[in-house]
Every structure is written in C-alpha cells, then in structure tokens.
C-alpha cells in the first residue's frame, strides 16, 4: 500500500522534472527558462523525496530498523536545503542576468529597467 503511494509520488516527480526540461528548450529567454528549470525541477524533486520518505516510513513500521528512520530524516533535511538553496540560487542568476544587461524579451512591462534608467 505504502509502496504504491511511493511509486505514485515518484511518477508525479518524474513528470514535473520532464516538463521542466522541456520548458528549458521551449521558452524564449533566460528568465522564463529559469522558471521552468529551477522551480519545476524543485517541485519534482520534492515529490521524488516524498516517495523516498513514504517508502522509508513504511519499511520502518514493518521492520522496526532504525536505519530507515535515519534515511527519512536525512531526506527531509535534503528537501529543506534544496528548497532554500534553489530559491537563493535562481534569484542570484536572475539578478546577475539583469545586471549584465539581459532584458526580458519578449516582455510586456519592465519596471526594474525603468527605475535603473537604462
């Protein structure tokens, strides 16, 4: 039962990761590509980790072996670290891109360029 739930989580995670990769190829500029490649893959990887946590929890109940508790906790810490570093990293890439002169193209509005006066 828990094995099936873990498999469903793995499936959802893989689906979002695949869509993220397709997004890199289809979107027009650096900012829209960042949306696809950083956010969607983060969400997909959260679901992959959720699958691991569910599997480890199921094995912990069945076998009472503490190595599965360690596996579940370490995966949870990995998810937290991933969420923080991915948000910070994609912000840093976007900021560097805008500072180095990459304008959103196409764009309907760009308040930041208006303020910087370029």
């Amino acid at each position, binding site marked *: 039962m828990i094995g099936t739930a873990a498999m469903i989580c793995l499936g959802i995670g893989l689906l979002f990761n695949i869509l*993220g990769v397709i997004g890199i190829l289809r979107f*027009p500029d650096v*900012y829209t590509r960042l*949306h696809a490649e950083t956010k969607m893959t983060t969400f997909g990887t959260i679901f992959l980790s959720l699958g691991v946590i569910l599997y480890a929890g199921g094995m912990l109940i069945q076998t009472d072996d503490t190595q599965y508790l360690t596996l579940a*906790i370490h995966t949870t810490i990995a998810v937290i670290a991933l969420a923080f570093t991915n948000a910070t990293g994609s*912000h840093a890439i976007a900021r560097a891109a*805008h500072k180095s002169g990459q304008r*959103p193209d196409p*764009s309907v509005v760009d308040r*930041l360029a208006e303020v910087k006066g370029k």
Partner: protein
Amino acid sequence: MGSDGALPLHEGGCLPVIRFLATAIAAFVAYLFLTAGSGTIILWSESELIIGCILSVIVGIASYRTFCRSGSVRMANPLRLILLPIYAIIPLFIEMARANIDVAIRVITGNVKPGIVRVDTGMKTELGMLILANSITLTPGTLSVDVDDTTRELYVHLINVPDELREKKVVDARELFSIFNIPGWIRRIAE
C-alpha cells in the same frame, strides 16, 4: 536570528549569554536530527549525546555573533517555530502545486506574457523580507530579480502578467498569490 537593518551590530537586544544559548541549542537540535536512531536513550546513543553537547558549545561560541546578529530572540518563541513548518507544508505547498500546474500548461502551450513588476512587501524586518522573497521565488511563475533595501520593495519577474497588474506602478504582494494570504502568514511568523 534575522537582523533588523535599523539596529547597529552588537547593540540593543539581549545579553550575549542568551544569544550564545540560543545558538548552542539550535546547533544541538540540528545535531540530534542528524544522529536520530543511533542508540537506545529514546533514539540516541550516549556517546552521540556527549559529542553533540561539546560540539554545540563550540559552534555556539564561534557563531553566535552571526546567528543572532540583530540581538533579537523573537524567533525562539515556540509559537513562531511551530507556525513555520505549518506555513511551509500547507499554504506554501498548495500555492506551489497550483502554480506548478499553471506553468506546466504554459510549457506545453507556449503561451507566455513575461514582465517585471514592482512589488510593495510591507515587511518591517530583514527576516520577513528573506522568507517572502524565498516564497515568491519558490512559487513557479514568479521570480524575485532585485530588491530595494531602503523602501523594501521587490522586483519580481512574472511569467504571465495579468492585464490588471500591467498598468499599476506598484503591486501589492498579496496579488501575486491567488489562494492564501502569504504575506499575512509571514508577518505572523517573522514580525
């Protein structure tokens, strides 16, 4: 924990001893999480507990100036510490799921109207700004590009700028999220 930009370093706030204790306890809890399941005293072995105490004292002495830079220990309030994971699991995760499905449809159809808008956050502390900017960036379709430190405004790249946001000079942070009042939650946690 979380620094107020207005406060000068090492002035105001509470005593260094309390800041050291807060840092050491946080380091010890992190060590307990990493070594859970190693023995029989609840979940930990005797040697892991002793080593953990020694290491957390060393970490506390070395890093309390950075960790409690503002001198404010308001994040040690248990209510805030309980609200933070609840916030991450319920409102943030549901917003992430909704936005992910939205962006997934845009990946397939290729229908994007990108643009950078100026967002008024209304946050008073640096920690609130950090959590809000990270929440915005973690939600697909919105990406914080730059921050104005003096007015506490964010410049956010949207993958699809709705017509009503396009005309506005400054957008309220609540309009970026559709289901929950995310800035309200962050204000309750961090301020």
